[in-house]
């Protein structure tokens, strides 16, 4: 059985807590991405699962067995490192062969296995070369080949694509996903690129300051962010987060003061307890649409900056309170700097967070 379970995983370096109470379970054939800003503890979490870092508190289970005290070589895992960590003085073929040595295979069987994965990852040409003589993309594929050459309990990837250029990233993303789906192992992929996470993962765990802020499917974390951090972190361009004050709630509709504008939103019943308090309104840039006249669910501002993004245009609109609103418009919709826009919010894509930052549901 190929599963990973982490319960209350905590790691401290001296007095610094790098990872705090991480709970995570990865099922067989499931890919979970650890996503978060630099220094949030993604690598540390992965290294604890791998056994390269001792666990300060909590438990790591792989395939149902508690692994806390086992050294990495006994955990039967495969890992791809951020900087590939190929053995510099060993040929690529030798690198891929390394994990096979302790399996007791004959030289001929080892050679066949190497040839098999070299075929999958198109490395046939470079098997004789040393890692220093490879391009970044080839090194990356060699590192993946070394991981999949045997049949481990689970896979761990630490930012496997961070050193590739945009094009290679796209193709490798697909390739890794394809390879993994054929293996049906529990897999954890660390990344700080949300596109990578959204495309490759079955579930995403968003981390900040050593803690998991939310864990859910790509759809869940995008459409129902649990708090302001997740809302701002997932989605590109970034969600507009506006400070406001809840004035009244009536018949499931709230009147919210957003600086000079005042908008009326439908809100969940839980919002009634928050009357008179400060809150944050989150509106995705694609949920704002220019309309001809202001209404009770529109915001008004002046076009400041226009950034074409290909099929769409990102427009920065400044409202009367000097707040910057990001709005994504279709390319056909032409705007000019200085133009006054009335922007209606799509209420299905609007999120309300209370003054502690938690989503109000």
């Amino acid at each position, binding site marked *: 059985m190929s599963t990973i379970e982490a319960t209350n995983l905590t790691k401290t370096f001296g007095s610094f807590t790098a990872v705090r109470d991480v709970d995570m379970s990865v099922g067989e054939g499931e890919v979970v991405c650890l996503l978060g800003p630099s220094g949030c503890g993604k690598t540390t979490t992965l*290294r604890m699962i*791998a056994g*390269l870092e001792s666990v300060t508190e909590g438990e790591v289970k792989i395939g149902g067995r508690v692994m806390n005290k086992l*050294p*990495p*070589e006994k*955990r039967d*895992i*495969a*890992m791809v*490192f*951020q*900087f590939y*960590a*190929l*053995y*510099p*003085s*060993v040929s690529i073929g030798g690198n891929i062969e*390394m*994990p096979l*040595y*302790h*399996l007791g295979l004959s030289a001929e069987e080892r050679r066949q296995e190497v040839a098999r994965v070299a075929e999958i990852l198109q490395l046939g040409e470079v098997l004789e070369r040393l890692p220093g003589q490879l391009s970044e993309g080839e090194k990356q594929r060699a590192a993946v080949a*070394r991981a999949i050459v045997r049949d481990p309990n689970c896979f761990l990837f630490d930012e496997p694509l961070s050193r590739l250029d945009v094009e290679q990233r796209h193709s490798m993303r697909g390739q890794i996903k394809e390879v993994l789906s054929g293996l049906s192992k529990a897999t954890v992929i660390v990344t700080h690129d949300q596109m990578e996470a959204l495309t490759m993962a079955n579930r995403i765990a968003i981390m900040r300051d050593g803690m998991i802020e939310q864990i859910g499917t790509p759809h869940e974390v995008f459409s129902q962010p649990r708090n302001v951090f997740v809302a701002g972190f997932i989605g590109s361009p970034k969600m507009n987060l506006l400070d406001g004050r809840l004035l009244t709630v009536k018949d499931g509709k709230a009147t919210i003061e957003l600086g000079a504008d005042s908008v009326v939103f439908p809100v969940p019943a839980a919002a009634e307890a928050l009357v008179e308090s400060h809150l944050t309104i989150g509106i995705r840039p694609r949920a704002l649409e220019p309309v001809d006249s202001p209404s009770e669910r529109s915001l008004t501002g002046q076009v400041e900056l226009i950034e074409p993004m290909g099929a769409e245009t990102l427009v920065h609109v400044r409202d009367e309170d000097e707040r910057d609103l990001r709005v994504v418009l279709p390319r056909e919709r032409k705007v000019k700097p200085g133009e006054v826009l009335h922007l209606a919010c799509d209420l299905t894509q609007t999120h309300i967070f209370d003054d502690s930052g938690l989503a109000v549901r």
Partner: protein
Amino acid sequence: MSATDKKSLAERLGLKVYSGVGNAGWGRTLFAAVISFIYFFPVFWIILTAFKTHNDALAIPPKFIFSPTFENFVAVFSRAYSAGAAAQDTGFALYFFNSVFIAGTSVLLALAIGTLAAFGFSRYPLRGNDTYLFIILTTRMLPAIVVIIPIFLMFRVAGLSGTYIGVILLYTAFNLPFTIWMMKSFFDELSPDVEDAARIDGSSDRRVFFKICLPQVKAGLAATAVFGLILTWNEFLFALLLTGVDTRTVPVAMAQTIGGDIGVRWGLLAAIETLFLIPVIVVTFMLQNHLLRGVTFGTIKR
């Protein structure tokens, strides 16, 4: 035939051939040439003297043009000790063997022990690691003359005086601190990820060390070996007191060659010295490609 096939003999032997003045320009190249000549001149003079007759060697003003002779080289191994007597074996063949054997063995031993120790210090630090490293180095801080009497007495008691084992042990101990410090700094520079990867791939500590780490510090091994070898090869004071007739090394035997009825035989000494230089030069040349990377470690990041 492509351009890469057209290699000169020297290049195929692995020697680097530099021609032209590179990027430095004539001025600097000339300056460097003058400085190197000043450095190299004593060696050059020794080699020249080795081919001179006794009279040519003593000539004033010094002779640069003379008819060369091999008589000094013959005399190194066999010569008459007084005028008219029959030529006799000088024992130098044995002394050369002793030098090679003693220096080679002790450098290799120090390398084997020191590299393992260095890996330990680098990867499995003890509490107070730096203190231990410092203590190891203190053994080399005292001047030789201070330690020689106790060591001499210890060797007497232990019956090690005049034996190969004794000198080899001593030189190994002398080379160890340097080897440990050098090799530790090389191990410290290796990427820990690579070893982690090897562990995850199921390699034991032994395999990690031999297959993964050691090949990466070849340059360091080469540099350490050459420095150790030069130091041991030329060592005189301890060899003088601790080697016996059968275990005498070349520096000691050379000193004992000075003197005799016709004064200092400069040609003979120069011939010994020339032969004595050859092994060091050969080893240095063989390792030079590694050496350059070895001695510049820390300044060049890969």
